[in-house]
């Protein structure tokens, strides 16, 4: 083996940097799923009757559904009765300020590099921190309140803004949409809620750091973001998770609604525990993310950097209903070791002169499998619809796989569709070229991969882009040799 390969090999051996478990007593519901469990969750959360009914309806639908197996991923069967569906950090009352928050929880955030205390002062980013399933701290609320922006945990939204929740919940991802969405609808515990009123431009990036913590607890987050007419909001989602020996299921649902002339930008950096070198212990991430451009000239933009999880099943999509609406999907998906990712997007053109852009960059290393699966659907009435898709794959080593499944369905002859796809191998000649200029192999790989992903990274907010670049480097350490 070459020296470079050895150096890189050494780095692969690194333990997952964010692997640690916070010791906080959790209020956990016994394992298993039944109507009683759902009633218990709903009762614990003191939910209104309509929401309980909504959950039960979802549960009944779920019972009749089968787990989808069309994705290009393999994993042992999940026993849905062996999962605990609710876990909340035990706290007597909701904290009024950060001082009231469990210090150990705050320490966890410190380790993750989210100094909440500082964030209040630093400004720019408001954090609604989801620890396990219940939000424990929300900052910047007052500032946002002045503008009429609602940014809170989902439970709080149910209490404080039931009319908004009831109006939009399930309007993009209905309960019976798919197996995991139905499960989420039945048992979701918390998540984030954002409402930006008419004509308001949210002055800061809204950010939620998700973190999976309780052993054996499935995570079922529910996020709903509504941008009213002419509103704008940029939302950041980032996460890390502690080392686990057993697989953890995560089935979130994210719904975005953009009304006339509204714009939502949703950015994700996902860094959940990918499992060890043999793929043991990683997170199963089965997520449904969808946005609806309900109004004219509305715009929804998804940007994701996926480096973690043992299995990723995720297709952030856009329903382009309003005329002249715009949907965008920018994605970097990195898989290493035994990771499997099946990710992509759906762009459904319904309105006239709607346009969508898809830029997907898949990087596979180790023994991983990386699949892009995308669908562009042009409905009959979508005159003048346009789509541009670009799917690039990069392979590192010869034991990994890259797969591309683009589906195009066009029912309108005035549509313009473009699709470009490339597959390349990270070149030894590229690495040597960098070496010959004094740049180490590790830095060279980093540079080449970041260059490959540039079109996506430039869509990320600045601070996120920097984080994403670092993350990419960490994820791919030891993958060339």
């Amino acid at each position, binding site marked *: 083996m*070459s*020296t*470079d390969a050895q150096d890189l090999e050494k780095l692969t051996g690194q333990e997952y940097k964010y692997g640690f478990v916070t010791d906080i007593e959790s209020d956990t519901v016994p394992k298993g799923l039944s109507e009683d469990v759902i009633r218990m969750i709903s009762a614990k959360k003191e939910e209104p009757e309509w929401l309980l009914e909504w959950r039960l309806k979802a549960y009944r639908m779920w019972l009749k559904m089968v787990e989808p197996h069309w994705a290009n991923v393999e994993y042992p069967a999940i026993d849905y009765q062996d999962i605990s569906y609710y876990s909340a950090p035990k706290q007597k009352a909701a904290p009024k300020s950060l001082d009231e928050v469990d210090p150990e929880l705050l320490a966890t955030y410190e380790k993750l590099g989210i100094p909440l205390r500082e964030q209040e002062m630093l400004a720019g980013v408001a954090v609604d921190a989801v620890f396990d399933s219940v939000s424990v701290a929300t900052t910047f609320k007052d500032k946002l309140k002045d503008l009429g922006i609602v940014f809170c945990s989902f439970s709080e939204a149910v209490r404080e803004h039931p009319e908004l929740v009831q109006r939009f919940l399930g309007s993009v991802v209905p309960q019976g949409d798919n197996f995991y969405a139905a499960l989420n609808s039945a048992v979701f515990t918390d998540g984030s809620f954002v409402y930006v009123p008419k004509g308001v431009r949210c002055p800061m990036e809204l950010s939620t750091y998700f973190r999976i913590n309780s052993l054996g607890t499935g995570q079922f987050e529910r996020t709903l973001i509504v941008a009213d007419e002419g509103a704008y909001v940029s939302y950041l989602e980032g996460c890390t998770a502690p080392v686990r020996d057993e697989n953890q299921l995560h089935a979130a649902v994210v719904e975005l609604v953009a009304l006339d002339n509204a714009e939502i930008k949703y950015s994700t950096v996902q860094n959940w525990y990918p499992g060890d070198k043999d793929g043991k212990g990683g997170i199963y991430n089965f997520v449904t993310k969808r946005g609806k451009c309900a109004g004219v000239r509305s715009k929804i933009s998804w940007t994701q950097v996926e480096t973690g999880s043992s299995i990723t099943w995720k297709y952030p999509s856009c329903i382009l209903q309003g005329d002249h609406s715009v949907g965008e999907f920018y994605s970097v998906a990195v898989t290493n070791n035994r990771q499997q990712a099946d990710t992509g997007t759906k762009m459904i053109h319904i309105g006239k002169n709607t346009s969508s852009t898809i830029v997907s960059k898949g990087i596979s290393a180790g023994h991983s499998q990386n699949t892009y699966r995308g669908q562009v659907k042009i409905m009959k009435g979508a005159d003048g619809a346009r789509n541009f898709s670009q799917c690039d794959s990069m392979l590192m080593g010869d034991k990994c796989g890259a797969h591309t499944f683009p589906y195009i369905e066009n029912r309108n002859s005035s549509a313009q569709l473009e699709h470009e796809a490339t597959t390349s191998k990270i*070149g*030894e*000649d*590229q690495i*040597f*070229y*960098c*070496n*010959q*200029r*004094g*740049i*180490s*192999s590790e*830095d060279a790989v980093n*540079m*080449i991969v*970041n*260059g*490959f*992903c*540039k*079109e996506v990274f430039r869509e990320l907010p600045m601070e996120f882009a920097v984080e994403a670049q670092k993350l990419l480097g960490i994820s791919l350490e030891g993958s060339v040799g």
Partner: protein
Amino acid sequence: MLEIRNLHARVEGKEILKGINLTVNPGEIHAIMGPNGSGKSTLAGVLAGREIYEVTEGEVLYRGQNLLELDPAARACEGMFLAFQYPVEIPGVSNTYFLKAALNAVRKYHGEEEYDSFDFLALVKEKMKLVEMDPSFLNRPVNEGFSGGEKKRNEILQMAVLNPLLSILDETDSGLDIDALRIVASGVNKLHTPDNAAIVVTHYQRLLDYIVPDFVHVLVNGRIVKSGDKDLAFDLEAQGYDWVKDLEEPTAETV
């Protein structure tokens, strides 16, 4: 500066270099000429540390160190520069970013302070004049969409920025029109000092009209079969390589 002794190397099991001896002193320019397949690029690649080449015999001393023990990045940091025959494209990475990363890697190796963006930009803009390159090249991805001439000029720009002690130019003249050749050669000449040295690998004599070598070596079938001054290049140009090929015998001595 560089001493190559009885160097043998092979690629994919096939022996290409069959006992190279060569000494390069500071201030000298050596030209290595030879027909296609004689091992010129292999020699350049072995010196730079390209992995596909396996050294089976001999040694290379570079500034008193065993060169073959250094990894490619360390060789570069120690002042060895290879101008590639086929410069590599790195999509999405800007020329500026690449150059700055390279320069700072070398500086860090020597325990020197790294350049910040402002100082670096000032330096690189100065160096660009040397190869008559437009500053717009800085923002373009490394070699991507560059013409052949632009790529070669970019190599010389990198050389100018990194300021190496020993430069190896591997067929830098290939694919160049006469204007680009003149620019590239003039860049190399301006960078030449009594303290540094260059090995110019070329198939044709015409580059040597611009970069005048102190020594010319003819490489045939993995051995240097003849060495001389610049006039040797003219002889080769006039008579072709056939007459030197006849010199290639097991007993052929190198100078």
